[in-house]
């Protein structure tokens, strides 16, 4: 951290508006909003010597071009597993996808060849992980790391061109191009995350998977990085799946929300549906009740009793029933059917028949 | 605040304990080569311990029998006989006793001394660390065999002196491993928590730090033991080991040198014994290192 960095800070916001992504063309009107990714009934398991872990149990979601979908849930809900499954990056020895479809641009990438998958990763679908410290290779310069996907996906590209493009990308994420030959350890956490964003965006992917990208960052740096991601996403007309547990980030950056619990999406809809809507899954209500809010004066928080179930031994019926204040007999026995209300879908017996309709209060 | 349900307060502490040790053990068992090493070592130890039951020490090992000299392996003498007509099998298994016991004793002694030196140096740091570690460096600078040779030459060749010499040679390595482990654990948050509770230094080192340092220390000791056994054999080979006519693998190799070309079995059996014990210890050491490695704790 030095005067150089202070200098750089002044350049940060200015450069953001100057640099243009190469080859960015305005999307055709018909393309905007086309379905890009659809996941159908995805099941993912981890098989260890001790147990069979059911990480994802029948997940359905869809993302359109240019859209941001928030995948919300607590530890153990299966969000990271879902992202890794899309990228086919599950640990080989233990992870497997027994059933389900992952359809990207009309192609079921669950079964394509490894070679085809390598073409997709980094070029059409990119991922950024939670911890910027360990995502970067400490012995390579950052320009080498940013140019790597460029060279891999464009066999005709010359090394010098790739490096030049890498420097442009650096400027796009607000880092001075003079620093392109430096090493990761010379940058702070927030800057490392920007570098990772640059690497992920190098080949202008259509879909970006961001797994808790700002959890490890300070709140003021988080705000900067979120703004950066939003700006770049708008410029490149990119779709994003934002994995987070922070409902504040969801409200500020996302268009659609999917709330996960024990490997299933138990509620989904637009941000309007989730934040301002009427009927909610009791877990969603519980999540909102757990957050100490800055605007309100609450004496006691209203957390959800108990813990997320162990994915190697899930309860029968609805996985949330042991913790649910409204649990009925049928909740213990059968999984509820999705109740659809235009864009808002809830998986709860409370809303399945009209006689038992109750409003989930926030 | 909602507590989970449990038995009424006041009941005696009757719940079961599943220790870390059993976890490490389970992980170790998954490593097939390590388990093979362990089995082999256990067999060696058992044979060494029950040597008396299999063969008679004086009649088979010591008593010379010129009529039966240099006979190849047969049903009467499983490994054949040496140039004095002594049963080679008996000499090898009694030799195991010497090699293993001297090795174990040396390592145990090194462990005790090295742990204390290493913990004190690692925990207190600063000048104490400097002084202790420079002393260790001095000892380490002398090749251990040379050191052992000098010590034995000065003190005289006996099992006890051999143990002492090998222990001294091994102490610096043990101390280093203990020191680095203690240093890395000294700054752990749970040590800080212990300090915040008012725990005194001695208890922190022995109750909080060392039990967590055991992993690398055991690995180092196992590999050190392999080394010690090899050193015992070498020292015996050059005549500074266990005095004749006591059997020891290195001694056997040494005394039968001239006859090996015609009777190669004289070389095979003690040689293989050395190889098997060192190899099995190495396999166990590697297996332990993997089993204890915290990175695999997931």
């Amino acid at each position: 951290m030095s005067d150089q960095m202070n200098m750089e800070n002044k350049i940060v916001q200015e450069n953001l508006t100057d640099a243009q992504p190469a080859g960015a063309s305005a999307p055709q009107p018909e393309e905007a909003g086309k379905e890009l990714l659809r996941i159908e009934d995805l099941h993912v398991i981890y098989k260890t010597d001790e147990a069979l872990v059911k990480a994802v149990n029948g997940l359905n979601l869809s993302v359109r071009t240019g859209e941001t979908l928030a995948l919300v849930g607590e530890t153990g809900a299966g969000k990271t597993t879902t992202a890794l499954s899309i990228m086919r990056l599950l640990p080989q020895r233990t992870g497997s996808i027994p059933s389900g479809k992952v359809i990207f641009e009309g192609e079921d990438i669950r079964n394509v060849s490894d070679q085809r998958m390598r073409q997709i990763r980094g070029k059409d679908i990119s991922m950024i992980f939670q911890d910027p410290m360990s995502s970067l290779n400490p012995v390579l310069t950052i320009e080498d790391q940013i140019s790597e996907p460029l060279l891999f996906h464009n066999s005709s590209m010359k090394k010098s061109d790739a490096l030049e493009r890498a420097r442009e990308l650096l400027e796009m994420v607000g880092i001075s191009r003079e620093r392109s030959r430096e090493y990761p350890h010379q940058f702070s956490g927030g800057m490392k995350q920007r570098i990772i964003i640059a690497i992920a965006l190098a080949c202008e992917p259509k879909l970006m998977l961001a797994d808790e990208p700002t959890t490890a960052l300070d709140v003021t740096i988080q705000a900067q990085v979120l703004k950066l991601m939003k700006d770049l996403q708008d410029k490149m007309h990119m779709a994003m799946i934002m994995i987070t547990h922070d409902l504040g980030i969801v409200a500020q950056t996302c268009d659609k929300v999917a709330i996960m619990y024990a490997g299933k999406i138990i509620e989904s809809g637009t941000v309007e549906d989730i934040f301002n809507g009427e009927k909610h899954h009791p877990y969603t209500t519980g999540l909102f009740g757990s957050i100490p809010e800055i605007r309100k004066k609450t004496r006691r928080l209203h957390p959800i009793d108990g813990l997320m179930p162990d994915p190697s031994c899930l309860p029968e019926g609805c996985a949330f029933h042991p913790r649910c204040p409204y649990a009925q007999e049928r909740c213990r026995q059968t999984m509820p059917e999705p109740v659809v209300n235009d864009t808002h879908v809830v998986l709860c017996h409370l809303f399945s028949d009209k006689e038992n309709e109750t409003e989930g209060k926030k | 605040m909602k507590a989970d349900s449990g038995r009424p307060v006041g009941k005696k502490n009757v719940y079961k304990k599943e220790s870390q040790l059993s976890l490490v053990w389970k992980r170790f068992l998954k490593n097939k080569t390590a388990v093979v090493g362990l089995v082999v070592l256990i067999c060696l130890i058992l044979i060494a311990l029950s040597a008396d039951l299999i063969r008679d020490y004086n009649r088979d090992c010591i008593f010379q029998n010129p009529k039966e000299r240099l006979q190849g392996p047969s049903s009467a003498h499983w490994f054949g006989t040496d140039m004095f007509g002594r049963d080679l099998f008996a000499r090898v298994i009694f030799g195991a006793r010497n090699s293993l016991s001297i090795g174990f004793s040396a390592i145990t002694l090194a462990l005790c001394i090295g742990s204390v030196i290493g913990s004190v140096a690692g925990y207190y740091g600063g000048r104490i660390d400097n002084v202790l570690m420079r002393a260790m460096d001095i000892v380490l600078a002398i090749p251990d065999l040379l050191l052992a040779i000098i010590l034995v030459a000065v003190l005289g060749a006996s099992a006890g002196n051999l143990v002492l010499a090998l222990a001294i040679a091994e102490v610096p390595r043990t101390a280093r491993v203990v020191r680095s482990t203690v240093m890395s654990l000294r700054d752990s948050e749970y040590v800080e928590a212990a300090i915040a509770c008012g725990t005194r230094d001695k208890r922190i080192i022995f109750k909080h730090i060392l039990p967590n340092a055991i992993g690398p220390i055991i690995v180092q000791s196992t590999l050190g033991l392999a080394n010690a056994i090899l050193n015992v054999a070498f020292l015996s080979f050059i005549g500074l080991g266990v005095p004749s006519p006591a059997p020891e693998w290195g001694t056997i190799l040494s005394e039968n040198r001239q006859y090996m070309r015609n009777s190669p079995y004289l070389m095979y059996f003690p040689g293989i014994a050395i190889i098997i014990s060192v190899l099995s210890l190495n396999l166990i050491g590697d297996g332990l290192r993997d089993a204890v490695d915290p990175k695999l704790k997931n």
Partner: protein
Amino acid sequence: MTAPLIETKDLVKYFDTPRGPLHAVDHVNISIRKGETLGVVGESGCGKSTMGRTILKLLPATSGEVYFHGENILLYNKQQTYGLREKMQIIFQDPHASLNPRMTVSEIIAEPLLVNRRAKSKDELEERVFQLMETVGLAERFVNTYPHELDGGRRQRIGIARALALGPEFIVCDEPVSALDVSIQAQILNLMMDLQEAEGYTYMFITHDLSVVKHISNEIAVMYLGQCVEQAPSDELFENPLHPYTQALLNAIPIPSLRPEDRLHDVIKGEVSDPIAPKPGCRFANRCPFAKPECTGEVIPLKEVSEGHFISCRLHS
């Protein structure tokens, strides 16, 4: 007005580095009254954790005074410091690293009782451990389990039980809920607040999460690069944040609401400057939208601008 239980005067903690002294805590003055909670907020590198540990004498202070019941504890000798441990405790952030992996739950909780000879017999010790477990909401059946077998929330409860074992007066809570899931966070916060109400504990609650700190604190101190830039009663700080950094911090929090007035705006630029051998004056100047040349160069003292509301800023002097 009753005298504060804990007070620091010009507390300084510097670390020696090859490039110069790292100003972790720089002339900080705070005070906490008995039974109340002081929230200490700031981002990484602001020195809040270091300050907590320095107050507890887990780190040696470079200079300054720390008064506990009116006595300067930095002058205490080793024996007296051991005595302090019974009255001042700490709850750590990381429920994984702060528990000895080789000790069972009961051994961990019993440790302070054992080393301070609080139990006369093994049975009494066991009894006390069960009581503490019940107080923090840990089921009895966990008494012989190891920390790695339990989840983060339960592990944190063990840490809390350990901190309460000696019946302390003052507890430094170093980001106790940051590593936990939101619903578990809420459980633990409720627990801590209930305990404070029941037993009258005094807390110094260190966190980077402003919404959490508002919930639990009576007063809040905002720290930036080792300096305390603003201090005020909790509600006052949120209704009327005066220091530009406090304002920036509040603006940066993503609010879970879709109202236009709650959108993220005025995102602050830049990064934290170097804490090693910093220039005198305000350390926030390089990022401050209101910075003037007179902001750096001289120390800016903490000034009371209204009842209990202190600020260190040229704009308000």
